[in-house]
């Protein structure tokens, strides 16, 4: 009789652990999804800004065709990228292309003085700050989620329950290491 009780107790404990692990993985996966949605919002916002910027620069420097094309292509690549890793790479290329565009703009004092251009530039840099922020959050959630499904004992269940490793959004310069800060004095 005692053996039966012990068996029941073990089963109950196992079930509790199972439920707890499952709920944790679901919660972390939801965080990853939210994090990705945040990045997506900001990437779209930037992609909406770019045509205006290109048009404005064109108005002053119509012959810099190669630069415009590079930006337009990179923009399309970001919009069409499949998955965070690819989107991250496309994003890095777009950032580089935009950098060249603004380098070109440097040579046109009238353009640089244009109120419209300045405003667009400010909006773009604000959006880029937000992309960087959203990326920090997203990558942190991916790290937590991946750790949660790759560590014992969750690793035994994760595959069975359909939890698979998620991709990082490729990190830009100076954004690679997350600091590990302990708050215990």
């Amino acid at each position, binding site marked *: 009789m005692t053996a039966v009780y012990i068996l029941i107790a073990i089963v109950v404990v196992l079930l509790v652990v199972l439920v707890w692990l499952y709920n944790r993985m679901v919660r972390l996966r939801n965080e990853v999804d939210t994090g990705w949605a*945040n990045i997506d919002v900001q990437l779209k916002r930037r992609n909406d800004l770019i045509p205006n910027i290109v048009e404005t620069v064109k108005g002053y420097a119509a012959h810099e065709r190669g630069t415009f094309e590079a930006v337009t292509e990179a923009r399309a690549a970001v919009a069409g990228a499949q998955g965070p890793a690819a989107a991250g790479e496309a994003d890095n290329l777009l950032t580089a292309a935009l950098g060249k565009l603004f380098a070109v703009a440097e040579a046109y004092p009238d353009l640089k003085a244009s109120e419209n251009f300045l405003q667009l530039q400010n909006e773009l840099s604000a959006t880029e700050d937000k992309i960087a922020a959203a990326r920090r959050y997203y990558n942190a959630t991916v790290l937590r989620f991946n750790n949660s499904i790759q560590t014992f004992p969750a690793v035994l269940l994760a595959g069975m329950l359909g939890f698979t490793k998620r991709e990082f959004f490729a990190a830009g310069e100076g954004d690679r290491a997350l*600091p590990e800060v302990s708050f215990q004095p």
Partner: protein
Amino acid sequence: MTLQQQIRANRFRTVLVLAAFGLLIIALGGAAYALGGYGLGVLVLIVGAVYGVFAYIQSGAMVAKLTGAHPVTREEWPEVYHLIDTVSIAAGMESAPPLYVVDDPAPNAFAAGRTPAKSYVVVTTGILKAMSKRELEGVLAHEVSHIRNRDVRLMTLAAVLVGVVALVSDLLGRMLYFGGGRRRGNDGGAGWIFLVLAIVTILLAPLAAVMVQMALSRRREYLADASAAEITNDPEGLALALRRLELDDREIQNVTSATAHLYIETPLRNATGPAKLVAGLFNTHPPLAARIGVLEEAGGFRLPDTLPTAGDVEMPTGSEL
């Protein structure tokens, strides 16, 4: 301790604060009964209960009133709003909290509100003048962390409930002083016992209030610092901000023991006399040097002892405040 654990702990502590408030109201009701009879006791209980419910619902607005904070629009402070937007995104918040300002030259900041959606972040005009953008970002990240970690509800409730306990016990004290002699009936030993009990309650009330404040773990500040460093990916920026607060010895004006625990650094550092004694005994904040030390160790840097003047944040002119 993970974020989830901290959130759970905060929920538990919130229940403790509410229970402590309930007990205090009952104790004060008992004291009022002893002083003024049955009617007064019931009155105190009812007023206490009504106030408790009101304060629970309106706690955010009450703290703004208590501290003299008023809201600022995005149009007025686009730059600071941009900082809090990015910090909130990096923290994974659904939306950025609104900014409030306290017109005070002393640099300080805090967050308040009962729910994350209704929380707001308060900065003094002094902190905008004193800090660089990078430092301000660290401070805002610290406050946003308090909101995300659910420290803010606990801190806000502690403020409004502590505030009223101090107020009520003060009121009772005055009634005892002026009206105690006119108590009718119950002469003899029993009456005196009630009177002594009443006095003890009145003396204990503020102390109990401070104990409620103590329910707030000092660890919350370390955790908010750590979260902020992760959010901004820049522990040095926050450490610089804390060093600046450490070096600045101005104190914010509109502070009571009810609201002291809210701020990023203790606003009662320069307290003298009995206030200093209380501030020392019931310190709500770990020392800034210790917090800077933790950040230095985590980030692998060392701050200089003195800092150059900052203040590259665009400040609106006085009339806009």
